[in-house]
């Protein structure tokens, strides 16, 4: 428990030092753009692959469970769309992104720490935590929600497409079900979740990277720890948000 409070306190102090007015806006802006490309464009391929398979699997498994003829086939469209919007696109995709982006951030900052690059920034008089972490937070909270919108759309699209080609549900029935039970708040909820998860992934992995001690072995351990903690926090905050907002 002591360890939890120690890490939580140090995490808050790091955030306090990070969320400050940038010294030179232009340099930070350039860094934000670079991070947006790395986080957003760099993760696009994996997000597309995951979402296509998630939607397809959801459709097939939902159809498999609907054995009674009393439930209309359009229900498949409704379940796939709602599950995609509420859980699959934001949560599952962010769990994968925690592995990809989280480990990258933690190992990048961790390597900078052990190779004295962070000390070099501090000696120059640069706020190292703000320069290294703030652009990553901004990039993550902008790009991850955009990735989640793409993921949600592709999930539903692949669900309806697989339903059509496997013959379990026609596209018309799928779309009818999707529209019937669609609530616009689901998109708002997905965006709130992805914004929260983006903040957690960028800050928690930066925290672990920033306080790396030792050598190359520790950088690897730090990256693993950052991913595990990010995943746990994503699931915890997922539950809290669902409880609070739905």
């Amino acid at each position, binding site marked *: 428990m002591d360890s939890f409070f120690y890490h939580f306190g140090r995490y808050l102090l790091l955030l306090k030092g990070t969320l400050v007015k940038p010294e030179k806006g232009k340099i930070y802006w350039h860094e934000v753009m670079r991070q947006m490309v790395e986080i957003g464009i760099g993760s696009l391929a994996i997000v597309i692959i995951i979402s296509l398979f998630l939607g397809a699997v959801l459709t097939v498994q939902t159809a498999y469970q609907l054995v009674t003829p009393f439930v209309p086939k359009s229900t498949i469209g409704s379940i796939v769309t709602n599950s995609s919007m509420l859980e699959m696109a934001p949560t599952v995709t962010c769990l994968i992104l925690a592995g990809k982006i989280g480990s990258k951030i933690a190992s990048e900052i961790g390597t900078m720490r052990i*190779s004295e*690059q962070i*000390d070099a920034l*501090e*000696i120059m008089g640069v706020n190292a935590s703000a320069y290294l972490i703030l652009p990553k937070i901004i990039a993550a909270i902008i790009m991850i929600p955009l990735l989640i919108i793409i993921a949600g759309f592709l999930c539903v699209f692949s669900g309806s497409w697989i339903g059509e080609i496997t013959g379990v549900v026609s596209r018309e029935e799928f779309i009818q079900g999707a529209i019937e039970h669609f609530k616009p708040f689901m998109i708002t909820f997905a965006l709130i979740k992805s914004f929260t998860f983006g903040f957690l992934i960028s800050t928690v992995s930066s925290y672990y990277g920033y306080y790396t001690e030792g050598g190359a072995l520790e950088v690897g351990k730090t990256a693993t720890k950052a991913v595990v903690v990010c995943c746990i926090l994503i699931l915890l905050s997922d539950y809290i948000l669902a409880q609070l907002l739905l």
Partner: protein
Amino acid sequence: MIKIEAIKKSFGNKAVLGGIDGVFEPGKCSLIIGASGSGKTVLMKIMVGLLPSTSGKVLYGGDTDITTLDKKALKKIRQQVGMLFQGSALFDSLTVEENIIFPLNMFTKNTRKEKLMRVNECLERVNLTGVNTLYPNELSGGMKKRVGIARAIVLNPKYLFCDEPNSGLDPLTSIVIDNLIREITREYNITTIANTHDMHSVIEIGDKILFLHKGLKEWEGTNKEVMQTNNQLLNDFIFASNFLKSVKSTINQNIKP
């Protein structure tokens, strides 16, 4: 000038520095030497404000004690400080030119043309040209050190700190780096402080030498005095090999009338 007064540092119950005093003058290369674990790096980190001391003062310019400064004031002092790190600490994601221009972008309002001129000036000063677009992983150890020096001097610092400037370099490159540090120190009248294990550096550029042993200042003097000292610990440290012992005795015999 940098003056340190009674610097003490402990990690938990373990005392690493036991009250170090010293004065480091501008235009001179001051070397901090000592065996591994003697507290050299800790002392240097305290002097640049990367580590807080347990007690004592670090006076920049003779009157500004950086151990009592707040973050904002420390930041201003640090803009007068250049540092060459043991592993060079160049930013991997930036090219040589971007590494050197970085402090200029952060702290000056010069035009891009002026900044590039300054970058090329610094690269020429460290005898490196045509490497502007290379990344650190494309450079040799000696080239990295020279880029590190160029980055350290780009803002015309008053104080230059070098942590093990020769570590990992071959003897010839070590001499080049030593000469460069000495020339820059004299040319720009910089207060240079270096941690080193390299005995060539001690003899060649040590205008002032501070020998630490188990966290205490064991000996202080110049490179000329090192050759004639009777301090057993210092002699054991510097002239550790039989070859160096014989060099010393030969030199001393030649000096005697």
